């Protein structure tokens, strides 16, 4: 158990102290949004916790459950879709045995779809832990996963 993290909204400038900015920071720090922090944040911003839950469930990128060790985001924008993003996605699902979840059973990889990262000229694009990779072919997926498994 990690020790209690510092409230991430303390160092926010006054005029950027909006719930969505703070939630983004929490997500970036933890990989997901823990319930305890949410309670605290609701008190701090003086809004009901339900309203924060409303925000979290509204946006695609927020997670309330911990993610896998590595995160793979497949761009599902039109250009990437037309150039084979679903093939890559299907290959990931098959290779990781995802079966409806977004995280593999061994907790190694979380696979998500994002809508357009704006690199349409290099389609199809995947983002592997903040590192973007372009012009991926579906048969490269097993090699990618092998690399990830070897990483410490």
């Amino acid at each position, binding site marked *: 158990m990690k020790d209690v993290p510092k409230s991430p909204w303390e160092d926010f400038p006054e*005029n950027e102290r909006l719930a969505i900015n703070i939630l*983004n920071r929490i997500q970036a720090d933890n990989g997901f949004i823990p319930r305890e922090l949410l309670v605290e944040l609701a008190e701090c911003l003086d809004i009901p916790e339900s309203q924060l839950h409303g925000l979290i469930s509204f946006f695609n990128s927020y997670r309330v459950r911990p993610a896998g060790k590595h995160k793979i985001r497949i761009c599902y924008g*039109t250009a990437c879709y037309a150039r084979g993003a679903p093939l890559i996605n299907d290959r990931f699902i098959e290779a990781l045995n995802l079966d409806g979840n977004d995280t593999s059973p061994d907790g190694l990889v979380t696979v998500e779809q994002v809508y357009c990262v*704006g*690199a349409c000229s290099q389609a199809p694009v995947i983002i592997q832990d*903040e590192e973007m990779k372009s012009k991926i072919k579906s048969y490269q997926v097993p090699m990618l996963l092998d690399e990830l498994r070897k990483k410490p």
Partner: protein
Amino acid sequence: MNMKEFRPPARHKYQVPASVREEIERKKKPVENPYKLLDFDVQISLRSLVEEGRLSLFPNTSRISVGMGTCGRVAGAQVIARNLSERNWENRARVISVGCLGACYAEPLVDIRTPEGKHYFYGLVDRGSLWQIIKTALGEPPSHNLWAVARERQTGVLRGIHDLELIKLENTSFRDFFHPQVRRISGRCGLVDPQNINEYAAMDGYQALEKALFKLKPRRVIDMVANSGLRGRGGAGFSTGEKWDIVSTNSDPVRFVVANADEGDPGAYMDRALLESDPHGVLEGLIIAAYAVGASRGYIFVRHEYQLAVQTLRQAISSAHRVGFLGRNIMGSSYTLEISIVESAGAFVCGEETSMLQVMENNRGEPRRRPPYPAAQGLHGHPTLINNVETLANIPWIVLNGAEAFRDFGTGKSPGTKIFCLAGDVERMGFIEVPLGISSSILVGEIGGATEESVKALHIGGPSGGIVPYNEFSLDYESVAATGAIMGSGGLVALGHNRCIVDIARHMINFMVKESCGKCLFCRDGLPELEAHLLDLCIGKAEEGILEEIEDLSQAIADSALCGLGQTAVNPVLTTLKDFYADYQAHIKGRCPAVNCKPLIDFEINLTSCRDCRACYLVCPSGAVKMRSGQDRYIVDQQLCTKCWACYETCPFDCIKITSEEFMWRNSYE
């Protein structure tokens, strides 16, 4: 409770909200230092920035600019930049990260400026061309891998790419890509260092702000924008000047401006490109807009997915603060503005202005009914000016060059230039600035380099746009609307003959199902129903009469949804039903003309050109490719095949055939 502290609440008395009271108090206060208003103080400050900027733009050493926008990074520019900057140049060259020049197909792109004002462009740089770049930077004549050489028309003057003229062309694609373009607002992209405010100032930056603050009254700025006929570039095409006028004439003294950089349209990335490559251009536009409507607080609502853009923007804001172009008494005038960034977290509907405001008030981003429009009653009930990033980037140009000059390009109703993003099955992809009203064949054919036969359809305007057959039409707001699509923010995805139109339409509806906020019934429940119908088509389970059902349902959603998202969500279906009816009918019969829908296709191996390299056998993940002795050495076991296309993508001799009964695979872009 202590009785002394108890006071009855003044319920029936109107109370001026605290924010309004603060604003009034602030406006009553005199300016702190009236001497700062003097003009020369400012002149020196901006001029000194320009001087410094000129030193770094036109150094007497070589300047190597590596394109490090998102597209460049994806293509591997970071390795190139690292290799170059780790070299010991002995003060003979400097390596600088710039944004994207627009030619995203050529990334990683490196531009070397030699002290005599020549620019050497290297495209698709890999380790092999590094040595050539180093040689060029050291002043030796380049031998190969060079794409183009350009010269500054007047050495030491570079305000945009239009100040360069080609003197040598090794790769004709470069000229074909840039020649039909008019680079007004994106001219600096890829040449200026986005992190360096001085360079921006040296390229005529912040001149417009200075002119607006000291030579023009806010009213005059609004008139200029109104006379230019600039229309909102976010999609709807509402007159910008009119919007500004509504906000500025409101009696409420608390006003806000918001720059809408929540660019959700898949396939459109002009906002990202502008923010990453030329953030000060957008910032300057935003400051002028705020000054014109009298706002004291500005926000930039930017997508979470654009991390690089957010970083660049933060950096730009803090450097503008440092030189006094933001914050209290901008440039020494009496005008004060603070700008903060709001990061969205991935919801398409938040590009809709009322939804965006809801999020900024810590609510779910559900759109509300309009009117009242945000220009009258927006953030926290105050009048709020919301403009797209590209619209704002137009403002400095208009203020500097005048409304009349703005009308030099474009059509009467849609003047000016517009950035389009071209992606998909074309040879040259990238972001392209052309006059409005340009023909689609110039854009896709000449600039994109696609032939008439290779492109089947154009997807215009993101998921709420439409898919229209590729033929000649003019690209302005009215003509695009006449085809059934909308201009949207200007994303163009070219679809080749091997892309299944029905599947793309289904993908769009699927996207909208996920993005629907769930407030109104037709959008929330109608769209999943529609997607299920389309899915039936794609997996070959559709029955006769399904097309009528699809059309009826789409029409009902379009007529009854509350906000723009729902009303336009069915556009891809309606446009394709009109123009690609044959494709839909083929799907009912269980065939996919583009051989794309997995359940409807079969893989076969054509052994005539096979060289027995066994690539297909080795790569197949499910063991469906089988080897045997005899005539049919390799066959695909249809029972085991998962249709992952791995064999097709690996086969070096094009032996894999994909069939959907009578239809044959037609590769259109390779």
